[in-house]
């Protein structure tokens, strides 16, 4: 039966990624880190090339490069270097170097599309298990640090006064982000990870009154996008990860458009 096979695995893998990426994405949106998330994901391409070259597990390569990238950029930001430019240089340089390096690796059948846009229909049971383990780790980290992270996001000064070290909290967030990127590569590819972070959170914004509410709604919308995206891509024979992102974008358009109309309807 087809549900026992690749489709079920695809659904489970996608839901695992949605579960971790949506709450993480809320912080990405609140802290205006969208470009940072994008850059970390692009850098992961170099990690893929390195893992292939050294026949190391993909997760190890992508996780370490994503983490390195995230830490370097966070450090540059603390020193007041123009983060925007630094990110642009490092992200695209590592993406380009990663792609070029892959062509030099002997015996690798280069399936660039799978890395750029994900290959969710090819995930194995082991991949699914790994994604859910990783998602559990991200969720555990975020819920453990939730209050201090939120306080530091609202105001580093207030956090300091309450005995919270904002730099330390940012480090936790950076680790969680690298983990999400490493998990999501197989599912949505390096180019669309940022979409899974940002779009569900942005779609949830007009529907939420509290930060926790926004994280919950974002998770629901992300899960809904995965389910409808996988189903639609199967029904219409379209690439799966882009279809998932299209579904999420549709949710964004509906919620924000709806909120806009609602605001105009009320005389104020």
């Amino acid at each position, binding site marked *: 039966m087809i549900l026992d096979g690749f489709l079920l695995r695809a659904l489970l893998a996608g839901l695992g990624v949605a579960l971790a990426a949506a709450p993480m994405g809320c912080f990405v949106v609140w802290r205006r880190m969208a470009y940072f998330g994008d850059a970390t994901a692009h850098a992961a391409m170099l990690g893929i090339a390195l893992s292939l070259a050294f026949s190391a597990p993909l997760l190890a390569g992508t996780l370490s490069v994503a983490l390195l990238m995230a830490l370097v950029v966070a450090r540059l930001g603390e020193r007041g270097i123009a983060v925007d430019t630094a990110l642009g240089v490092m992200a695209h340089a590592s993406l380009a170097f990663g792609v070029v390096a892959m062509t030099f690796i002997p015996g690798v059948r280069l399936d660039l599309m799978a890395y750029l846009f994900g290959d969710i229909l090819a995930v194995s049971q082991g991949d699914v298990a790994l994604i859910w383990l990783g998602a559990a780790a991200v969720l555990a980290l975020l819920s453990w640090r939730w*209050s*201090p992270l939120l306080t530091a996001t609202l105001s580093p000064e207030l956090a300091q006064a309450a005995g919270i070290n904002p730099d330390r909290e940012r480090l936790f967030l950076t680790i969680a982000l690298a983990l999400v990127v490493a998990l999501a590569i197989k599912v949505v590819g390096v180019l669309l990870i940022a979409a899974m972070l940002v779009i569900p959170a942005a779609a949830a914004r007009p529907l939420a009154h509290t930060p926790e509410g926004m994280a919950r709604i974002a998770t629901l919308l992300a899960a809904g996008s995965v389910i409808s995206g996988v189903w639609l891509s199967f029904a219409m024979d379209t690439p799966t990860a882009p279809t998932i992102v299209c579904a999420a974008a549709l949710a964004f358009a509906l919620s924000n458009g709806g909120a806009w109309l609602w605001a105009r309807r009320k005389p104020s």
Partner: protein
Amino acid sequence: MRLIDCAGLGVRFGKTQALHHVDLQIDKGEIVTIVGPNGSGKSTLLRALIGAVPVTEGRVMRSPGLRIGYVPQKLHIDPTLPITVARFLGLPRRVARAKAAAALAKAGLEDLGDRQMAALSGGQMQRVLLARALLEEPNLLILDEATQGLDQPGSAAFYQQIEAVREDLGCAVLMVSHELHVVMSASDRVICLNGHVCCEGTPATVSAAPAYRALFGTGTKGALALYRHDHHGHSHDELNSTAAE
């Protein structure tokens, strides 16, 4: 009881010496105001006292039972972050709804718990920040230019609220302000800062001190006259009627 005692305090950012040789004591229940021109290290001093900025020279002694309530200059809430007043007051530690409402009342607000932070006016926002500081049950309230962005009646009303809070809780108050005439009237002690302590004493002593005049010129004379008039309490009506928000 001495709450904070710093001696020879200095803060250096790279090659810039923001503060040097600052001696400062704050006793239980007193109101101390720090005045000084822009870039004089006022905010740095407050941040050093709460531990947000590392002290590079000297020392800061905090009394063991010290509980600081900190009211920042202002708070910008990113429009992408939905948060109600009640949730904000419960960060980083959750508080019961009744306790939050009581803190809001002490800060001079009705129960705005369900209101979005982004929908507050400037005056309401400062009072919510004050309420948040009061939840710590502080014996030292620290305010960093807490009325920046408020108009004059708004800030006068805010400082009246601070005085009410002080009488209610008996906490000491340490604040930084530009609005000398409003702030000084309520202060037990004024510290004039410009990288170091230029002069300190009662509002009258400081305003007459040559070091203070050198920093602020004589332009504040009129303002201080207003303060004196107000302080002697001949007629509060004029001020109060404009102070009502």
